[in-house]
Each structure stands twice: as C-alpha cells, then as structure tokens.
C-alpha cells in the first residue's frame, strides 16, 4: 500500500530540496516512520520560502520522481477520516499508476498549494477535485510528451501502470519516469483536461483499507506531539484562574528546577524550562497573583438562556418568510409554543494542543496540529514581526479536531514565546488548558412556535434563535488578534464575524419564518468561552430544535412523524433520504409515542434529518428509557447518508459511525460548566 509519508517526513525540506529528495532519496521515504520524519526534520532549511505556491502550475500539485513515484501535494489536512487514502485512490486512477506509487503531501505552506486547510468537511470536496483535475492535466501532459518521443499522435496513445504506450502496441511504451521523472512539468493547469468517467475507476469507489491505521496501531504514525527540534525548550502556560482575572504579578526570583524564563505580557503568562516535566512543575509551582474579577457570565444555564432571550440583539437575520406567522399563530386552533436550549460544548480533543515554534530575527517556522495551517502563516508573521516569506507553517497530525479547536491558539502561543526567548520551543497545553480554554461551540436559546388549523392541518412553523456567533473566534487564524494570546495581552482586534443560528431544512408550511438573533459577546474574547466552529457549527442546536419541533407538530396532528415529514418536505432528495432511513430501519408507521412498556423500561424511536452543504443525512434512533432511574440508552441507529460520489466507502462508514458516537455523547451528556 502506498505510503502516507509526505507530511511526516518532508516538513523540514524546502520545495527544491523536496524535489531533489524525490529524485535521490526515495528509498528512505518508502517506509514511513517517525524516524524518517526526524531524519528529514534534522535537515530543516532556513527559507525564505515562496510567497505562494502557484495553484495554476501543475508542478505545485504533482511531482513525478526519477523512479516514477508520484507525490501529490494538496492544501488540505487529514483530521483522522483517512482522506490521505482517498486522495491516493484519486491520483492512482486519474494518472494510471499503482496506489503503491503515490505519496500524499499536505498541510505545509512552503511546499503545498494554499487551500486554507480542511474545514466544513471540504477535504475531499475541494482537495479531491483539485487532485483529480491535476491528475487529468498531468496525464494529458505526459501523453503530449510521449507523442513527440514515440513519434505518434497523442490520440493513438493510452496510459497504464505509470507508462504511456501506443494503442495495440504495448512494446512501444515510455514510462512517466523517463518522460518527466525528477524534472518539472512546467505547464499551467489549463482547466481543460477531462477527468475520467466514474466507470473507468479502478480504485475510486472501492472499500480500500486506510493506509494510516496500521501505522497508528503499531506506533509508527508521527503526530504533532512527536516532533522535536535540536535544542528545543519546553513551555507550559499559566492561564487566569477565572475568566477576566488580571495578572498582578509573579515571583520573578523564585528558583525552580530547569527554569529558563517566565514569559509575561498583559495577562499572558508562560514558563519555559529545559525539560518537559520541569515546565509542568514550574507552571504549578510559580507563585502568581491574580486580581479576582467581577463575574463576567450568567451564574447558571437558566440565567444564560434568559440573558440570551431577553438581551437586545446586535444583529438579526431572517429568511424563508411565507404567509403571516404572527396572524397565523394568533388564530391557530391548536398552538405549540416551545423553547429548546443548547449549551456551550468543548472540542475536548483527545489531547490538548501542542505546537513547536522556532523564531529568529530572520525566520519563523511553526509546526501545528490544527486544520488551518495556511491562514496561520500571516498571523505568525505578525506575531514574530516578519514577512510572510520568512514564515513557514507545517501541519502535523493532531489529537483529533472538529473545527476550530485549541490548535491555532497553541501555535500562536508557541510562536510568541519563541519570539520572546529567541529559541525553539515546544508548547504542550495541559488538559485544563485544552478543555477550559479551547474555543467553544456556541449556546443557543431557540423559540419554536407552530399551529394547526381547525381541520388539524399543520399550518405554521416559526423558528427564532438567540445565541452567540459561532465565529466570535474566527474559523481560521490569519491575524494575531484572532488568537487567545493576543486577547490576553490586550489591545488587539479580532476579526469576529456573524454566524447566524439557522436550521437547514426544506419544510413547507402556509406560514413560515426563520429568524436568528446574535447577542453581543465581546467580553468572551479573552476567556475560554469564545465561540467558534465545533463539528457542524450550530447544526446540532438548530437541528435539535427544528426536528424535535416537527415531531411535536406531527404528534399534535396525530400523524406518523415520517409521513408528516414526507408531506411537508419540499426537496425531493430530502424526502428520499428520510424515506431511505425509515425503510432501512423498518419504520412502523403510526403516531408517536407508542404505549409499549415492559416494567420500568419504555422504548421509543425518533427520526431526524439534516441537509448540510450538499450532503443530506437522516437518522433513525431507537432508545430505551428507564422511567424509574431516568436512564436513557440508544439501542440502535440507522443512518441514511447521501454525500454524493463516494471515494472510499470504508473511510466513509468509519466516519459516519464515529460522528454518531460523538453526536450521541454531545446530545446526551455534554455541557461546559462555567
């Protein structure tokens, strides 16, 4: 199986060295190990790095080595869904090479095109299509070169197994390596090459095992936390004990083992030591004085939701206005008036963030584990007082990430500390730094109103949310002000934007309105309650409210909830996905709830659906509730997941299953306390 080595072993190399390496050192890359990564890292070069990797140059995307190995460069990252394998399948098919010959290299600003990284599930959507087009362009370019070398028309040529040959004359053949191995294509991406038809694919669409799983279960997969630089120091942060607490001072004379420096600016405080455990100890032992702040937040969730509902919004948006919702509600024969509430939630990644930064007066290199390494380049330049050409940001696999977690803040913290001390530094957040201070999924107080007419027909759907923008902390970090460090230091502006909490659905009612109100939250910027993207930003809250409400409407109308949905949905594809989930689940059409009960256990079922950015998902859940203890257990999920063309069904199923588990945990158990 082809190797996922690019990112792990090449991040110290400049693009030119990388190209040279592909010609001369391929064997050492063939087995991807942490050791190979470290060997390459040891040869890290100093820049300056190109201002940008030209997206319109084929060489930016594909490199064919002297031995015929193909390296695909892409501006995405793999957060654990296995898209490296999917990219490998795409390139192997489009270019007609064995999967074993393909290496995927990603997430490095110095050697891969800037696609901002991965977010909104766009790894395959954008990265996959870019690579598919690059593969088609490259195959066309190789055939054009072969036509000259073999002295035939390009139309008479075909490609297979890393070589071009004349149709019907397999001996008249020239390999890709002979044509362009170790050299540049020097052609522009024309946008005119035609990728293959799906029927021609050999790898795409097949359940091919992920390449990273064996490395992960044998300890060979190199993560961000495994990265080391010679002479690197270890840093830990000391965050304010409460949101808004001001740093009064620390004991600068305190002797602590291995202490190199305390970095302090505004309310930002970090210790730097020779060894990691010394930094852990110093962060706990340093005598620090904080001023007790006035409470910044509501004292409870009840108070928070009340605050959200009663505070004048800073900005509002409404859409899907049909009929007259106020009048319809006033005269409805049966009224429904319901509140749904959704709390702050944490990414709570498996490991708190880690980053390494090496900043000098001439250059800055930062290694980070988040989804958006590319925008960070500008923010690091600002942090270190350098130009972008002097900055390189390299992604290494992190401990899971579900949007804007703590990775970017750690990268900027590390860059800031390294700038202050002029030495390479590794910053590892503590568990508390991670869970308490990572950006949070925003809370929402949602008001749903609906009604039935005299005939029992549902005629009204009125959605109104009150919450915080999910981009109070921006979803990429391209300015220092977006980082927690800047907000703790004070005096920097963040590029917060509005993200309105609106559901995605296609229900049609005679009277309908959806409105979202955002409440000012600037006081959160230097706290652990900054709101940001957390898997399906706002989707869990808005879908929870909207779909539960649809169930209430169906119940009030005494209709089966699936039948009710099919009756009111307007989008044909949405209906098909809902129907697929219900059919697979063996859904028994009847109004909910049933009266089935065995002892204290009652059983229930539910269906919810959500379209999102081109994908449509419907889930049937079967649950048991012990009415004596209140204990709830999900006994079965059936998921219908229509995400369009599937590159790798194995990876997709794994991702869907994992999403179900995470979503179940968040729905049943999780709320950040404050």
């Amino acid at each position, binding site marked *: 199986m082809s190797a996922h080595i690019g990112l792990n072993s090449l991040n110290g190399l400049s693009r030119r060295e990388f190209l040279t390496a592909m010609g001369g050192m391929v064997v050492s890359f063939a087995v991807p190990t942490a050791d190979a990564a470290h060997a390459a890292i040891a040869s890290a070069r100093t820049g300056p790095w190109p201002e940008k990797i030209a997206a319109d140059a084929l060489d930016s995307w594909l490199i064919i080595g002297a031995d015929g190995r193909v390296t695909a460069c892409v501006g995405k990252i793999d957060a654990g869904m296995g898209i490296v394998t999917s990219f490998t399948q795409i390139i192997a098919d489009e270019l007609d090479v064995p999967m074993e010959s393909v290496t995927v290299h990603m997430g490095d600003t110095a050697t891969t095109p800037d696609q901002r990284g991965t977010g909104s599930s766009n790894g395959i959507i954008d990265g996959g299509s870019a690579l598919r087009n690059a593969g088609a362009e490259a195959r066309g370019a190789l055939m054009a070169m072969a036509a000259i070398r073999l002295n035939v028309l390009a139309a008479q040529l075909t490609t297979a197994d890393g070589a071009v040959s004349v149709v019907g004359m397999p001996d008249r053949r020239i390999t890709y390596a002979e044509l362009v191995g170790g050299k540049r294509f020097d052609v522009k991406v024309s946008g005119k090459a035609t990728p293959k038809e799906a029927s021609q694919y050999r790898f795409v669409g097949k359940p091919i095992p992920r390449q990273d799983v064996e490395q992960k*279960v044998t300890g060979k997969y190199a993560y961000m936390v495994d990265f080391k630089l010679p002479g690197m120091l270890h840093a830990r942060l000391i965050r304010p004990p409460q949101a808004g607490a001001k740093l009064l001072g620390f004991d600068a004379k305190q002797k602590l083992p291995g202490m190199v420096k305390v970095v302090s600016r505004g309310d930002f405080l970090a210790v730097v030591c020779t060894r990691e455990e010394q930094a852990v100890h110093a962060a706990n032992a340093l005598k620090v004085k904080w001023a007790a702040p006035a409470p910044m937040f509501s004292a409870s969730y009840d108070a928070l939701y009340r605050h959200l509902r009663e505070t004048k919004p800073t900005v509002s948006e409404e859409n899907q206005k049909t009929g007259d919702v106020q009048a319809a509600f006033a005269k409805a024969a049966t009224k429904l008036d319901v509140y749904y509430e959704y709390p702050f939630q944490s990414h709570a990644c*498996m490991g708190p963030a880690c980053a390494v930064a090496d900043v000098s007066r001439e250059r800055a290199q930062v290694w980070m584990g988040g989804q958006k390494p590319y925008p960070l380049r500008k923010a690091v330049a600002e942090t270190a007082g350098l130009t972008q050409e002097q900055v390189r940001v390299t992604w290494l696999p992190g401990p*899971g990430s579900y949007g804007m977690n703590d990775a970017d803040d750690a990268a900027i913290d590390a860059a800031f500390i390294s700038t202050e001390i002029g030495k390479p530094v590794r910053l590892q957040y503590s568990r508390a730094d991670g869970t308490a201070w990572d950006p949070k999924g925003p809370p929402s107080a949602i008001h749903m109103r609906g009604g039935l007419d005299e005939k029992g027909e549902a005629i009204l759907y009125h959605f109104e949310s009150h919450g915080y923008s999910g981009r109070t902390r921006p979803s990429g970090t391209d300015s220092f002000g977006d980082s927690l460090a800047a907000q703790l230091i004070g005096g920097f502006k963040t590029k917060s934007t509005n993200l309105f909490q609106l559901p995605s659905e296609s229900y049609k009612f005679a009277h309908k309105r959806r409105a979202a109100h955002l409440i000012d939250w600037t006081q959160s910027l230097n706290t652990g309650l900054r709101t940001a993207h957390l898997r399906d930003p706002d989707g869990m809250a808005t879908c929870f409210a909207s779909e539960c409400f649809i169930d209430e409407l169906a119940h009030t109308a005494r209709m089966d909830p699936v039948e009710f949905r099919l009756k009111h949905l307007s989008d044909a594809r949405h209906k098909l996905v809902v129907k697929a989930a219900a059919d697979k689940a063996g859904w028994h059409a009847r109004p909910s709830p049933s009266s089935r009960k065995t002892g204290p256990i009652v059983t229930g079922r539910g269906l919810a659906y959500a379209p999102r950015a081109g994908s449509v998902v419907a889930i049937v859940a079967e649950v048991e509730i012990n009415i004596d203890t209140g204990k709830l257990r999900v006994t079965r999920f059936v998921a219908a997941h229509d995400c369009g063309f599937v590159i790798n069904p194995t990876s997709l199923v794994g991702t869907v299953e994992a999403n179900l588990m995470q979503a179940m945990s968040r729905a049943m158990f999780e709320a950040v306390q404050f």
Partner: protein
Amino acid sequence: MAKPTRLTVNGKKVSVDVPVDTPLLYVLRNDLDQHGPRFGCGLAQCGACTVHVNGDAIRSCVTPLSAVAGNHVTTLEGLAERFVERRKKGAGSLHPVQTAFIEHQAAQCGYCINGWVMTAAAYLDKKPGATEAEIREALSGLQCRCGSHMSIMRAVKLASANMAKDAA
C-alpha cells in the same frame, strides 16, 4: 544527582539519568524516543499514555520512574515483538489485537488508539476469549473523542476470539 535508573524497555536494557519522580511518560517519550504512549490528560483519566509494566497495563503519565526501576516496560512500538517472542511466531507478526484493529479499521485520528490496543492486549493476554461484557468492563476507563468505539469493540471481540483459538 542520584544514580541512574535502570529498566528494560521493549527488551532493551536502558539507564536513565533523570530524577526518579519524573513521570514515566516523559522519560519514554523525551529520553527514550518511544512515542506510542501519548499525553492526553496527565491525570490517568484517558489512557492515551498506557504502557505495559511486566505485562500489566498502567498509566505512564502518573507513574514515577522509580516505580518501574528494574522492571520490564513495553510500549506500543514493542508490543508486536514482545508477543512474537512469547509465542514464537514469525517475525513481522503483529499482536492479534493490532491485527484485529487493522481488520476493522478501528481508528479515526488514532491519538487514543495506543490506550485501547495496549489495555486490550494486556487483558486478552491473560484472558483470551473474554466475553463482550468482560471486554467492556476491561476497557471502560478509556476515552476516544472521535467516536471510534463501535469499530474498536468489533476489533477487540475479534482479537478475543482469535486469541482463544490460538490458546486452545
């Protein structure tokens, strides 16, 4: 400085010259370049740092170096080799738990996977053929944020069955 601490890591005798209260996790990762065990919480709450000490799964983030002096430590990197030695299997074989994780593609980001593999391996080494309920109990102190639990359970059940066959 006190005398260096001697221990055996993945079959190799090593001597480490750091304070004996240093958590084993940092010694393994930073002094001995063993990256299988990872920092997740530092509080023995997640299991990402699990290693075997004389065949038992322990949390290396809260285990001081002094506690393993003179003992055998196995990390994820050494798991297959130690298994192969014990069972006299051919080189290149993996521990049946690792094989089953690959078979069931039981990982997303994989940061936690060390904990699941090492805990399951230590448990099934002693109790091949463990039932699903026993496996759930044995793995109950572990975490996975990506939500790989279903594939992990399939993998460990497969490993348990395969190891029972091997033991028979």
